[in-house]
């Protein structure tokens, strides 16, 4: 087991993590640990090993120019003793010692089960985008983009630029709510510019509001084609496609914060104005504190990095900007709130827990995720409830189960 000591240890090399590491490195020895092959997180995920965003490149170059240690391909799986974390890397286990810890563990997509959602070629919206960035060819493939949130738009835009035929974007939110959200964007001019440019590039792609996916089956004939059904204003529409990209907004990744004892309320890590959690030497920035998008992640990261190294006056200078991005996050989350009809998509034999193949019909009798887990193994597979937990929370109102280390499956010899 190798050992790396830092004054400030940052977990997550996305927007928030990099943004925290940079100002912290002016005062402290900083290490950034990330589970991907390259920095950038999900929003700046590399395309065939290359980062495209000029903003991300600048951050990465600054990180490399500083005295920051970057460890890629390392999965943090839990705490060791006090002030130490353990991570699994291709070279074995690394023990990470820290004085201050910044958690920038990001978010994942929320998936809602519908009949047929476990078929191959049905991916998350961000999931399919990530696959294409990893070299999957999407040229001339027909893609139905469905779910909710601005990510659908960004994904459709990206896939189309890569040669995909985007059949439609099915957005479950009502048109009026989205219009209200768009009107409120005047405070965020860059969002308007980005949004308008995307709308123009996607002008020939139907944007269906009040519309949601109700099921998928394998098409007869061609082996990999899918027929997706969409509910649109009370009518059912069938669409043939090669891929379905389907995501229902984002869920904060709070598992590490949870096993470290940080207070979590309503699914988000509780922080004070300095981004400090309920555990004094642990800070948290970006999506785990509430879904707010990239601007929120960048500014929260800065505040966390500054605060963790005693630069509190400098941190305060960013409070107003942070509060503005939080208002945006709130508006976003309420505009794309999930409609009740989505709770009724799954049939009795629709799989909810994909790791253990637990169907909807077997879960309805249980009062909590704990009971369901004990009786059916729901949430006990390798994803440890990361996928089904967000679904059962929405479907049944269950609180996610307690997180225990290792928070990722680890090879026996590395434990």
């Amino acid at each position, binding site marked *: 087991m190798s050992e790396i000591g830092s004054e400030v240890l940052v977990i997550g090399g996305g927007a928030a993590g990099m943004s925290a590491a940079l100002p912290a490195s002016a005062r402290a020895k900083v290490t950034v640990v990330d589970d991907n092959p390259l920095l950038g997180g*999900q929003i700046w995920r590399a395309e*065939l090993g290359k980062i495209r965003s000029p903003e991300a490149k600048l951050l990465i170059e600054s990180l490399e120019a500083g005295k920051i240690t970057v460890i890629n391909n390392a999965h943090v799986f839990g705490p060791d003793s006090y002030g130490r974390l353990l991570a699994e890397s291709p070279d074995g286990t690394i023990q990470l010692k820290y004085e201050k810890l910044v958690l920038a563990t990001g978010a994942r997509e929320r998936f809602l089960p519908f009949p047929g959602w476990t078929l191959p070629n049905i*991916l998350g919206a961000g999931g399919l985008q990530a696959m294409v960035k990893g070299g999957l060819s999407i040229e001339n493939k027909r893609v139905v983009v469905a779910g909710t949130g601005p990510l659908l738009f960004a994904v459709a835009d990206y896939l189309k630029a890569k040669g995909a035929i985007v059949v439609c974007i099915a957005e479950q939110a009502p048109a009026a709510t989205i219009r209200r959200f768009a009107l409120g964007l005047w405070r965020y001019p860059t969002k308007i510019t980005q949004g308008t440019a995307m709308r123009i590039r996607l002008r020939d792609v139907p944007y269906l509001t009040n519309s949601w996916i109700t099921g998928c089956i394998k098409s007869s004939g061609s082996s990999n084609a899918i027929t997706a059904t969409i509910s649109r204003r009370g009518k059912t529409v069938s669409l043939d496609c090669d891929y379905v990209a389907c995501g229902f907004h984002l869920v904060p990744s709070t598992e590490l914060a949870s096993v470290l004892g940080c207070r979590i309320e309503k699914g988000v890590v509780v922080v004070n104005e300095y981004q400090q959690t309920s555990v004094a030497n642990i800070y948290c920035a970006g999506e785990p504190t509430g879904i707010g998008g990239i601007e929120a992640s960048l500014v929260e990261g800065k505040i966390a990095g500054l605060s963790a190294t005693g630069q509190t006056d400098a941190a305060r200078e960013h409070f107003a900007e942070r509060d503005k991005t939080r208002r945006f996050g709130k508006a976003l989350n309420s505009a794309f709130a999930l409609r009740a009809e989505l709770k009724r998509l799954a049939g009795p034999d629709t799989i909810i827990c994909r790791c253990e193949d637990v169907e909807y019909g077997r879960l309805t009798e249980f009062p909590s995720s704990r009971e369901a887990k004990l009786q059916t193994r729901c949430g006990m597979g*390798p994803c440890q409830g990361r996928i089904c937990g967000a679904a059962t929370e929405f479907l049944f109102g269950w609180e996610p189960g307690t997180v225990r280390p290792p928070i990722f499956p680890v090879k026996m010899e590395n434990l």
Partner: protein
Amino acid sequence: MITLTINGSKISVEEGTTVAAAVICSGETAFRRSVTGEARGPLCGMGICFECRVTIDGEVLKRSCNITAIDGMEVSTDE
């Protein structure tokens, strides 16, 4: 270009390609069999869901979406 073996067949992909993308490129959509025998493929694309897990160079349960393909890699799916 990178050449790897997927289920016994050689396939060449661009440098930087993930193992998951290479598997689909080889024409395979069933990355693993679920507990009840369903064919499954990648869902989250970011190492969370474990649906894309395959065997790489003899090591089982590797999340192919988070691993970059390298020359000479041996991958097998559908286990």
